[in-house]
């Protein structure tokens, strides 16, 4: 199917250990899909494998707009329209957030004439606007990427990057973990806004239902032991909340 993110029979192993045992999942534009599961179920592996982390041995197929992503390097996948918001964003000392995002932006829009923000000054103002919506201090934009950021600042910066990049499909890997309720609201609002404005399809990976209270999601898939064992609508979250992962299989 065109314009979808189509994951078929996706398997992954690392150091001889199988983590994903065949995942099938299709995400449409504008759609928000939630993946839940206990620790060690393979949720984060799924995120990394989709983005192209090199340590996994991968089989199956992941197609974005009919293009096979598994043949591409992570940067090519990003250029194809995939974005990963990291569970643990990495610190890159000395690479200023503003300069970094300007590089990403200019690379995405190589034709100067077609750029909405012609100069780094315009871009900076745009970034300041986004930062204030996400309650990110402007000072952070002049610091190294994630360098010395708090956990919450790192997560909010992931959403800021997503807002700039405007991907076709985004995977949010436990973006809500370790955040207080105010930060979760800010992030949920940001994600909602970006998907409404751009038609982005979203995969939310989480093991709490807290963030889900603030999101309009369509489907829920429960991953246990590297497989989707149950799929449903928002009501499945209720069920999980009441019964726990242990009994959901039945």
């Amino acid at each position, binding site marked *: 199917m065109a314009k979808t993110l189509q994951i078929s029979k996706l398997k992954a192993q690392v150091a001889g250990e199988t983590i994903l045992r065949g995942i099938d999942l299709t995400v449409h534009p504008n759609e928000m899909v939630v993946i839940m599961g206990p620790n060690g179920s393979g949720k984060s592996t799924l995120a990394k494998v989709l983005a192209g982390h090199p*340590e996994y041995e991968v089989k199956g197929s992941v197609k974005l707009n009919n293009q096979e992503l598994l043949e591409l*390097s992570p940067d090519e996948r990003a250029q194809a329209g995939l974005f990963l918001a990291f569970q643990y964003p990495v610190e890159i000392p000395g690479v200023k957030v503003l300069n*970094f995002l300007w590089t990403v932006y200019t690379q995405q829009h190589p034709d100067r004439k077609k750029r909405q923000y012609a100069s780094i000054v315009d871009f900076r103002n745009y970034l300041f606007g986004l930062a204030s919506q996400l309650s990110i201090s402007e000072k952070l934009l002049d610091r190294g990427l994630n360098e010395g950021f708090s956990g919450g600042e790192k997560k909010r910066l992931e959403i800021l990057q997503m807002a700039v990049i405007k991907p076709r499909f985004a995977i949010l890997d436990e973006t809500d973990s370790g955040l207080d309720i105010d930060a979760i609201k800010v992030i949920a609002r940001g994600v909602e806004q970006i998907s409404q404005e751009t038609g982005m399809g979203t995969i939310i990976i989480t093991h709490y239902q807290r963030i889900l209270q603030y999101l309009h999601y369509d489907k829920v898939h429960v991953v246990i032991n590297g497989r989707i064992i149950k799929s449903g609508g928002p009501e499945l979250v209720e069920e999980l909340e009441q019964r726990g992962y242990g009994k959901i299989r039945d």
Partner: protein
Amino acid sequence: MARFATKKTKSGNEFIKETYEHGYSFDTANYDFNSGKGLTERIIREISSLKKEPAWMLKARLQAYGEFLVRPNPLWGGDLSSIKFADLAYYLKPIKNQKKFWADVPKEVKETFERIGVPEAERKILAGVKAQYDSEVVYGSLKSTWEKQGVVFLSMDEGLAKYPDLVKEYFGTVIPYNDNKYAALNTSVWSGGSFVYVPPGVNVKMPLQTYFRINAESFGQFERTLIIVDEGASVHYIEGCTAPQFNSTSLHSAVVEVIVKKGATCQYTTVQNWYKNVYNLVTKRAHIGEEGSMIWTDFNMGSKLTMKYPGFILAGKGARGETLSMALAGEGQHQDTGSKAIHLAPHTSSTIIAKSISKGGGRTSYRGKVFISPNAHHSKNTVVCDALLLDDKSRSDTYPIDQVYNNQVEIQHEATVSKIGDDQLFYLMTRGISEENARKMIVNGFIADLVKKLPLEYAVEMNRLIDFEMEGSIG
């Protein structure tokens, strides 16, 4: 290391390219003087006589030559065993006299410095410029604003001729001829280099720069620089170094002495990008008076082996010294760099920040000495060494020595070694950045806080050089 691209596999050789942009050279047949191979007392006497030097300088040269002959190579640092002193030429004078006008510089020399970008920099950003080609300074200028204020910017040879008393007063006082084997060698055969004098209270707002170029094969370049910054004055002196791509080794062995008087400031910046067959064995030291301040910004990217530890003697109360050192070692290179901080007076402070990058089997070493004398109470020293390894073949070591003879002082030492991790590369790549650009970004980020201490044009050039070094570094 795991590979990021699964589809495209590049076959090796077609991507190997020469990454040194200053590799060309010109014929030396028409040189004004060529001392031939090897060093003898006769050659030293000849150099001194050609330069019409005062007797004391010849005496100093000969005394140093005696020291050079008996002094063994240092047993620490890098491997010096393949320097063949008998195979080197020690004095090559390309043209008869230094030129005051760019148009008078011989064509080949002019072309060399034009390719390095000297005339443009001279026009736009420099207060004065010198260009040294093999043994002699071939071109020099100083903007009239500074000349009128009494600033002196000459080749060391001219300085000795015009200001013999000043040179005699300071020559060899910060770095005596017997400081080490290569200081002795330099003292015996020195030629060229800069003589700078900044009168009291004069702030030279634009940098002075000397470009050092080795053109001849199997040659030793021994420039000698003396900078005197008088009370309350300030100056930023920059040197840049390049050499052609030859198979035989060359030697660059400079001595730089800086006198920073009461309340004066000197920044000395080096952008060293010799070709990878040059031994770069340089002694640099500053003597700093009361409330004076010295900053060494020392960037080493080229050479086969560099051994260089710019130092400062904090001699006056409240004197400050800072070394910001960056070294990049690729295949076949060893950068053994660092700094020396000698605290002799109370309330003195020093900061040494050393960052090194090793790739392709290259080796970097930080070697530093901090000495705090019994008089230097309430002094402070901070040393930060950060090493970045780009692969498993490369190496980095830290050799710090602290000698502290006063207990009312603050000493700090931090050292980190990090590798460009797959996680950092992966993170940047998921934002659409290619692996090569991600590496460049990480390396430039690593040295960003040092680079920003340079004037903007140099910072830009430094990032360009780093990018250039990183080209094709994947796999």
